[in-house]
């Protein structure tokens, strides 16, 4: 079985942990994330007739202000940047944050996900898409379960590239 390390990054409270909780059942206590700034979860997925073991590193907050060990980003095969569609501050500096993740992980492509779509109307979502300076890959709702699976499948595809 192929094993891949994937990262979930983004500001505090954007719903990274909720997305993982939707996708994964097997996980460590959430206490770790507030203690050492990361929590590791595991999910075995099937992708194009292949079984892949995803080790998902949920890294607490990525807006540059937090002191996160750089080593958390090393050796990652893919990364997902999550922002909160309903909170502007989580995507205003997205360029800077993405650059930081790219620099630390050495990854070129990062899956960009706007979460909490359940809190906005279709028009409001369109407005946010216009405002965000990069292309958004998926609009999800961890609460409703919308497109969560798709987001992780995209991440898996990226990890296998």
């Amino acid at each position, binding site marked *: *079985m192929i*094993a*891949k*390390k994937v990262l979930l990054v983004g500001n505090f409270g954007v719903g990274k942990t909720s997305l993982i909780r939707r996708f994964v059942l*097997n*996980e*460590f206590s959430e206490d*770790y994330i507030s203690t*050492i*700034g*990361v*929590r*590791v*979860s*595991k999910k075995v997925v099937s992708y194009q007739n292949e079984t892949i*073991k995803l*080790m998902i*590193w949920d890294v607490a907050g990525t807006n540059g202000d937090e002191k996160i*060990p*750089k*080593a*958390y980003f*090393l*050796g*990652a*095969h893919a990364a997902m940047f999550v922002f909160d569609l309903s909170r502007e501050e989580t995507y205003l500096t997205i360029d800077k944050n993405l650059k930081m993740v790219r620099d630390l992980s050495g990854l070129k492509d990062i899956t960009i996900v706007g979460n909490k779509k359940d809190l906005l109307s279709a028009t409001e979502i369109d407005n946010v898409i216009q405002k965000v300076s990069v292309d958004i890959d998926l609009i999800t709702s961890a609460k409703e379960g919308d497109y969560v699976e798709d987001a992780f499948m995209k991440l898996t595809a990226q990890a296998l590239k």
Partner: protein
Amino acid sequence: MKKTPVDSTKDNRFELLRELLLAEDRDKFEALSKEVILREKLKNNVSPLVDEKILDLREKFPEYFGDTITQTIKVQIRDSQDEVVEALYPIMGKLVKKAIVSEITKLTESVNKTVKEKFSIQEILKRFIRGKKNDADIVLQEVFEPIIEEVFVIEKDSGLLSGSYSRGNIADKDMVSGMLTAIKSFAEDAFSKEGQDLEDIKFETFQLSIQNFKSIYIAIACSGVLNASFKEELSDRIHNLAEIILRDRSFLSEEERLNTLIVKELIEA
């Protein structure tokens, strides 16, 4: 006409005299009698009520007075800590002493058995020929034999598990490897000054030793007493294992093959 009794006059006079002399006493007697009767009546009425109250108190004593008593005891204990300690000390001492004696007895038996076995002429000759270990090491190693409980071969950067060995069942090994790598990174980032690596994590009953290499690290959890010679021997074996893995990196992508190699190089060696 009816005849008057002979002594009637006399009797009447006597009665009159008695009334005159004892009138006050009679009044007192009657008052006393009334009081006794009243008390008797009161007793008959009140007794069941008192019995009922006593029964109620007996049943609900903790409810009525529990808090007050607890509070009082607490205050008393707080105010007389020395006395409490003095009172408990002999009892605690006896319990601790009993436990220690029991453990020492077991230890003595174990040491005696080992000494008997290891200090036979045959064994002394064997050791003389082999050299290296001292006598204390041998006895300690026999009594608290170090055991390799878990082995993890982990990719240094990604924290992905390449191979493992486990004596028992532990939590998901992949997740343990990931979190161990995260904790290691966290500790190194927080405490290390010159890019040093975390090498040991000690628990109460076992120790996690970490040997770092360029692209992998090997974590070994051991129980028992890890004396210098065991550590040295284990370190040699870990280096041999790492050398084999790093020379043939295909081991890192073939978990089963690597697991067999770990058993061969570390457990059976």
